């Protein structure tokens, strides 16, 4: 007999795994509530047109359906866009800052493969950088400590540094797009090829090739670079000055860090742990997004992938 399978990119969880996942989400929930964040839940499906307001590149999602009027509905690819929608409608009369959290499944296309994941995270709406960023990064580290992750580091970058530097050096939009494409696909060989093809002065080319490779502790922010680049790093330096030691000791500043979706407008970050092959979570500032729903205000948030976090905790535990 053929066993009835389940859709690609999904999985079942049995009691032992569920118990461990719930233990993680319960601890996270406790941290969020302690920090006075309130839980929200939004529909599993959103109108595609709503998601496209947030970011066209993820509005295709992984699973779609049509409603009776022919409107395309997409299984939510993230929780940030739905929460931005909520903040601008249901919460429209409440004065900022708004502190919201969620624990919900999201559905994304990961390199051509659909994937359902359990995400837990917060959105802090109405506090500008670096105040909001400091609060959210502090909460993120508090959450990771609370679930017992030991060796994690936070990669911190800024979504504006490289595009702005590029705009100040390369006038041609198509060339800039090609260079950004190489950076966002992690291809430094391609980046160098595209920069060399752009016919720039040797110093400018060198800067565009070397800057995104710079990463390390706070010290990298004090490096003597070209004046434009130094100016663009002002935001990260201000953030670093405001971070408590508990967060700063975990920080790896990465001047080439890129992060999808495309709505980030400032600081971006990812959580790394040596026991897991990819980021277990991440987030950043998205100061334009709420304006697209009619309520412009700065915002910052993070999300953790609970299954990845569980995997990292399991492997860390086995090594000790």
């Amino acid at each position: 007999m053929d066993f009835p399978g389940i859709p690609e990119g999904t999985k079942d969880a049995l009691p032992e795994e569920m118990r461990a996942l719930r233990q993680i989400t319960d601890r996270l929930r406790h941290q969020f509530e302690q920090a006075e964040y309130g839980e929200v839940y939004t529909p599993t499906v959103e109108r595609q047109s709503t998601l496209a307001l947030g970011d066209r590149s993820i509005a295709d999602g992984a699973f779609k359906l049509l409603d009776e009027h022919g409107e395309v509905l997409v299984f939510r690819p993230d929780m940030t866009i739905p929460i931005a929608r909520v903040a601008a409608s249901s919460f429209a009369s409440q004065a900022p800052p708004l502190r919201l959290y969620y624990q919900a499944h999201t559905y994304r296309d990961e390199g051509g493969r659909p994937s359902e994941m359990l995400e837990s995270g917060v959105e802090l709406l109405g506090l500008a950088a670096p105040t909001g960023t400091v609060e959210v990064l502090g909460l993120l580290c508090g959450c990771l400590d609370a679930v017992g992750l030991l060796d994690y580091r936070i990669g911190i970058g800024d979504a504006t540094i490289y595009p702005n530097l590029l705009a100040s050096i390369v006038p041609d939009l198509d060339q800039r797009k090609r260079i950004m494409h190489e950076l966002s696909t992690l291809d430094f060989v391609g980046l160098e090829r595209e920069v060399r093809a752009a016919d720039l002065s040797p110093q400018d080319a060198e800067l565009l090739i070397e800057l995104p490779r710079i990463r390390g502790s706070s010290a990298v922010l004090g490096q003597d670079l070209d004046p434009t680049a130094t100016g663009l790093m002002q935001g990260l330096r201000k953030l670093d000055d405001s971070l408590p030691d508990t967060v700063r000791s975990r920080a790896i500043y990465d001047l080439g860090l890129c992060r999808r979706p495309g709505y980030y407008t400032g600081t971006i970050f990812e959580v790394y742990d040596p026991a897991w092959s990819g980021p277990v979570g991440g987030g950043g500032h998205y100061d334009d997004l709420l304006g697209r729903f009619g309520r412009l205000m700065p915002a910052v948030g993070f999300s953790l992938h609970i299954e990845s976090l569980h995997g990292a905790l399991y492997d860390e535990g086995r090594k000790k």
Partner: protein
Amino acid sequence: MSDTMTVAVPRGAMFSETLDLLEGLGRDVSAVRSNDRKLFFPEAGLITMRPSDVLTYVSSGVADLGITGKDVLMEHNGGGVYELFDLGYAACRMVVAAREQDREEVESRMRELGTLRVATKYPNVAKRYFAESGRQVEIVEVKGSVELAPVTGLADAIVDLTQSGATLSENGLVVLEDMSSSTARLVANRVSYNYRSDEIDEFLGEIRQHLNF
């Protein structure tokens, strides 16, 4: 991630040049050279495997760094790893090839049937290449000896990697289209790239110095 930095080394066409490079950087690779069957050398921080598996080991974090061909990266759309450096060796071309006597047949098939049967070990590269030039093809995936496909009638043409073109011409095949070039690349796991940034940058610096970049 293990305590010492681990490098995935490709066996096959890139093997000896990769070992020469590692030796040039002052690594002791004698154990790897003298032992054909052993695959894992934890004391030297090296794992050996076929080139296409390097990407799998690096993206999963079992190896922090790896050396593999650009062809492998193209087939897996970058594979979610950092492509850090073009090592320059193992230079090859990705080509469309067919039997000399089928040149016209390939064109008339395309015209009259609206499609072409293309055998390849690189289905994604082939699909993307033909789609970008507005041609529909039927991909026949094979695991080895792609040259056999047009000779036996399994396919009209092939997409494959060629170094000197010798294997192609031995099988009576000619290059119809030059698609792209490929060389050995140094790749890094996303987490290792940040977590081991000092070690990785030092390794990269040694390579640049050694290759005079």
